[in-house]
């Protein structure tokens, strides 16, 4: 509309000159003015018709659009990992749209940077609801928890990058989904991996280091129970905040307790702080972190102290030889961190659900949820540690974790651990 109007204005100004030039001095000012008025009128009508046509075509166009929300943190406290994840989500959407979308329907998904401010997330959610989105790609603990109550009553599937285990229990949060092993499953897989590698006769000693924050606490209960079951000796917890700049006293205590292993439930920054201080104090403890603790940026942050530390990853690395990688690499030429790949996969899951829902009938939040729950061994092209399965009661995508180790500044996949899908572990 705006462009058209500009055009009209331009013509209005341009035309009278042309007229006066062509007719020389024969045309009086009055005539010119009349001509001008006429022109103006015609142009106005033309513009209106064009505008109307655009509105109508727009309406027709919007019928062929699937609206999806996307909440991301690009500039907030989790922006360092939130940005690649969000870019992965958008990259897969753009790829699908360029291939014709969902059976000819384009996906309309505007990213909203909520900067990890939950009030902003809720405000934007209300806008999405007004726009009648059929699903939302979300981000971390903050927005996912703040919206968990809404999405289940408003019936809008919410695919998050918060992998808290309680979101997998469909009885409590029926509209929450994600495409990686939940935090507790990842922790259990790590424990099992360490136990398998334990050769000494005595029980291995383990300590849990995490912040006093929902994200850190979430897997502790389930993790400790499993550790005891495996025969670990569980030592007292240590609290290292997500914003910590040093962790000397906590690690001194870890040293004095003589822990063989330490689990870190932090983000890349706090994990790097822990690893650095551990090296400084000369700890022999083997560290393993959850999915957000160690990534490709860790060597830069920890400056060599990360050597040998493990991370429970939910994807492969950029450039790994799996069937799904060439496509990702053809779309995204520059090497990306694992978070990008997980963002890509989460959109892949949503696109598949939209495809399935569209084949059955009109796409609604409920039909997308139902479609997600028909996932049975959905193949992500090897980008995830296992194939994805959702059922109406169990939203755990899979029970596998890629154990990666930091070796000379690079992440190396050591083993893919797979746990049994035990019913009593659901939501814990």
């Amino acid at each position, binding site marked *: 509309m705006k462009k058209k109007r500009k055009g009209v204005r331009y013509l209005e100004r341009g035309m009278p000159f042309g007229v006066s030039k062509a007719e020389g001095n024969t045309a009086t000012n009055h005539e010119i003015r009349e001509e001008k008025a006429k022109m103006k009128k015609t142009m106005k009508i033309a513009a209106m018709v064009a505008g109307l046509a655009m509105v109508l075509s727009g309406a027709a166009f919007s019928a062929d659009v699937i609206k999806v929300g996307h909440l991301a943190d690009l*500039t907030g406290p989790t922006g360092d990992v939130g940005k690649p994840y969000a870019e992965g989500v958008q990259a897969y959407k753009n790829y699908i749209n360029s291939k014709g979308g969902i059976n000819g329907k384009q996906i309309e998904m505007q990213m909203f*940077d909520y900067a990890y401010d939950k009030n902003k997330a809720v405000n934007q959610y209300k*806008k999405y609801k007004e726009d009648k989105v059929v699903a939302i790609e979300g981000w971390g603990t903050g927005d996912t*928890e703040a919206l968990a109550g*809404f999405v289940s009553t408003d019936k809008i599937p919410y695919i998050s990058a918060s992998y808290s285990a309680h979101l997998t229990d469909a009885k409590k949060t029926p509209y929450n989904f994600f495409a990686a092993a939940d935090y507790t499953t990842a922790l259990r897989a790590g424990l099992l991996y360490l136990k398998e590698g334990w050769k000494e006769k005595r029980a291995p000693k383990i300590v849990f280091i995490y912040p006093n924050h929902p994200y850190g606490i979430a897997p502790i209960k389930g993790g400790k129970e499993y550790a005891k079951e495996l025969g670990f000796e569980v030592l007292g917890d240590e609290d290292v905040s997500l914003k910590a700049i040093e962790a000397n006293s906590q690690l001194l205590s870890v040293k004095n307790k003589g822990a063989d292993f330490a689990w870190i439930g932090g983000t890349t920054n706090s994990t790097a702080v822990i690893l650095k201080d551990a090296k400084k104090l000369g700890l022999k403890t083997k560290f393993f972190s959850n999915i957000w603790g160690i990534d490709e940026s860790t060597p830069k942050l920890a400056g060599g102290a990360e050597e040998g530390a493990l991370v429970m990853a939910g994807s492969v690395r950029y450039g790994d030889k799996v069937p799904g990688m060439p496509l990702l690499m053809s779309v995204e030429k520059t090497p990306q961190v694992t978070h990008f790949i997980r963002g890509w996969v989460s959109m892949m899951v949503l696109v598949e659900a939209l495809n399935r829902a569209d084949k059955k009938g009109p796409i609604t939040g409920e039909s997308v949820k139902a479609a997600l729950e028909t996932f049975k061994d959905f193949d992500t092209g090897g980008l995830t540690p296992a194939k994805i399965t959702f059922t109406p009661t169990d939203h755990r995508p899979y029970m596998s974790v890629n154990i990666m180790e930091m070796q000379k500044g690079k992440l190396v996949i050591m083993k893919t651990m797979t746990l049994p899908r035990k019913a009593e572990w659901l939501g814990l």
Partner: protein
Amino acid sequence: MHYCGDFRTTYEKDIEILQTPTTRIGVAAFLVFLVVFPFLVKGEYLWVGLQILIAVIGAVGLNILTGYTGQISLGQGAFFGVGAYTTAYMTTKMGLSFWVGVPAAGLVTAAAGMVFGIPSLRLKGLYLAIATLASQFILEWVFLRWEPVTGGSFGIVVPRPSIGGYVFDSDRSFYYLVLAITVVMVLFAVNIVRTRTGRAFMAIRDHYISAEIMGINLFRYRILSFGISSFYAGVAGALLGHSLKYVTSEQFNLGLSVSYLAMIIIGGLGSILGAIYGAIFMILLPKVLTVLTTKLTMLIPGAAGLAIAMEQGVFGLIIILFLIFEPDGLAHRWRMIKVYWKLYPFSY
């Protein structure tokens, strides 16, 4: 403040809240606006309106404590949490209704506030602020760790209230419910500050030794002030929980406490109207800034990241400018505007 020609000839006239016909018409018009508001907007703006109403309750409560009694509290956010968790526990785990849960939330929070208000007998000013800061940290820790009651890191999913078969599920219906509660709570606050209790609060604020000499029981009134303020916080927190349908510890952090303190300072300490203005200002400002940055992003796409990052800075800057140029708050500015127009063009 009384002006020329403003005579009161009876006591009834003297205790009226709305003294002049203009204020009566103004307030009536505002109430009508509040009632039709949900039909003028929808979606996120209706939600913002709902949040403002809840914030008004919390801010009015804090102003009774800080503005009227002169006790700084940095624990309002945690008291919100006590209210939210109380109603969440009662409605989901004990199976009681919203109509029991919310008043109970107010009472439980009032009790908690009175306990954490005990140091106020010995501590004043900044020292008390630090003592209440402790209550913020202690309560936050309790929210996260007392798992059987608070659901620990998972939180609690709470339902929207219902009466008979009708569920206040839409934001619009819930808005009316909150509006009714807000109006009652604000009226109660307006009246409390005019009673003996309110006068005692102000006497303590202005000079606590004089107040004690006048026969005011300092301890009793200080604790009472904490209790009333926390009652308001509890009700507001409970409504917040029901509006979000979900209660987790992340919602009730120190940031929330500070923003409530900012509300009453910007609005005007020691003024109910000020608390209302402050709540509107603090909830609306981030929203307005978001709208502006989105507009700016559309005009200059390259500036998107910068604009969003600047939002927080601009927010802070506006608050600083406000404190410099409007130290007495929005309520004071409103009074000045009224005075100016009352005598226009013949000011003294």
